[in-house]
């Protein structure tokens, strides 16, 4: 940047950060002395610093933005509570199908268990093996007449005699 008088108002790039601190009185010791010495010999930095100081004065004359009204925090909190309720409701809606399915599954499982138990209890006696009916003699001697029983026909008498004869031999 050049002025009419040919003066450069651009600060030396190396010094810009230091000049910003110098402007606000935030430089101390060797840094402050270094900047002061540089300013004494650099017209560009001097002019840039003067402009920056004028800019600070100009901006310092403006008032900050007026703050929010007294109702601001109440309104903000009302929105937050409403959002929190909505979030809780959304969470409930999201899990509702899973909860419903879970209940149905539990009910079906309970019913199935009940049916199985009932069926098992009622058919338990019927399923017990008939020990008497499975005697080995009954299997091996199907055609022999029952010895405890007296022959009813002549054929049975003949059969008994034949059995006895074979037994003697």
């Amino acid at each position, binding site marked *: *940047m*050049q*002025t*009419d*008088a040919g*003066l450069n*108002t651009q*600060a030396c790039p190396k010094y*810009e*950060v230091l*000049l*910003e*601190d110098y*402007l606000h009185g935030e430089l101390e010791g060797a840094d402050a002395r270094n900047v002061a010495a540089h300013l004494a010999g650099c017209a560009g930095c001097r002019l*840039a610093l*003067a*402009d*920056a100081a*004028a*800019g*600070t*004065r*100009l*901006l*310092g*004359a*403006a*008032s*900050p*933005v*007026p*703050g*929010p009204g007294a109702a*601001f*925090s109440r*309104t*903000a*909190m*009302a*929105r*937050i*509570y409403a*959002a*929190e*309720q909505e*979030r*809780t409701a959304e969470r409930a809606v999201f899990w509702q199908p899973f909860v419903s399915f879970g209940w149905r599954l539990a009910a079906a499982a309970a019913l199935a268990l009940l049916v199985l138990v009932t069926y098992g209890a009622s058919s338990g006696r019927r399923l017990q093996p008939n020990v008497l009916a499975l005697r080995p003699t009954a299997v091996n001697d199907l055609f022999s007449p029952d010895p405890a029983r007296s022959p009813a026909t002549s054929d049975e008498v003949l059969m008994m005699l034949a059995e006895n004869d074979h037994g003697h031999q």
Partner: protein
Amino acid sequence: MAASAPAMALPGSQAEPRPDAELVRLCQNGTVAAFEDLVRRHQQRVFALVAGILRRPQDVEDVAQQVFLKAYLGLGRFDQRAAFSTWLYKIAVNECWDYLRKKKVRPLVYEADLSEEQVSQLDGIMSSERPPQNPRDRAEIRQLLEKVLDALPEQDRQLLLLKEVEGFTVQELADMLRLNVNTVKVRLFRARGRIVQASRRRIRASGSSDARPASRPERKD
């Protein structure tokens, strides 16, 4: 976080003000009422920040409230590695840019030139060492400055306004705009010079250059 009753009093709220970190922990454990203290504590600066970026007074309150709502909803993910205020200001900056993008509006640009009275006022401030104390004058100067600040790139305008008028620190600005501290300092330094030069151009253009301080050399535009 489960919602507590809105009327629930925060235990110990009458005593010493609790640090932000403690209030954040309380909120994260489900005490929603603790967030109200955080809102009250930070509302002024969030409001200033949003106003500095949007410049549309009718939108500022709504966006500022949205900032607190977003902060509350995101509090579960906030790990407190940074200060709560830094995190909150970042949310505010993002919310402003989202808002401008959604509404497809640029930050308000003042197209009207300065009136003779405003130019004279500007000249007066620049040549005076003492800033005006009257709040009404200062509010007018703010409006006037916002017009002059339009000569700057958007981010430089925000930096100057937030630093010099709203009182944010260089570190806060660097954090919220994700810039290096030295970059912020350089931009501020240059922007200050630019706003002064822009003001001088306006004063000269209005023909009142005679009122300019004699210490400044004449410049070509």
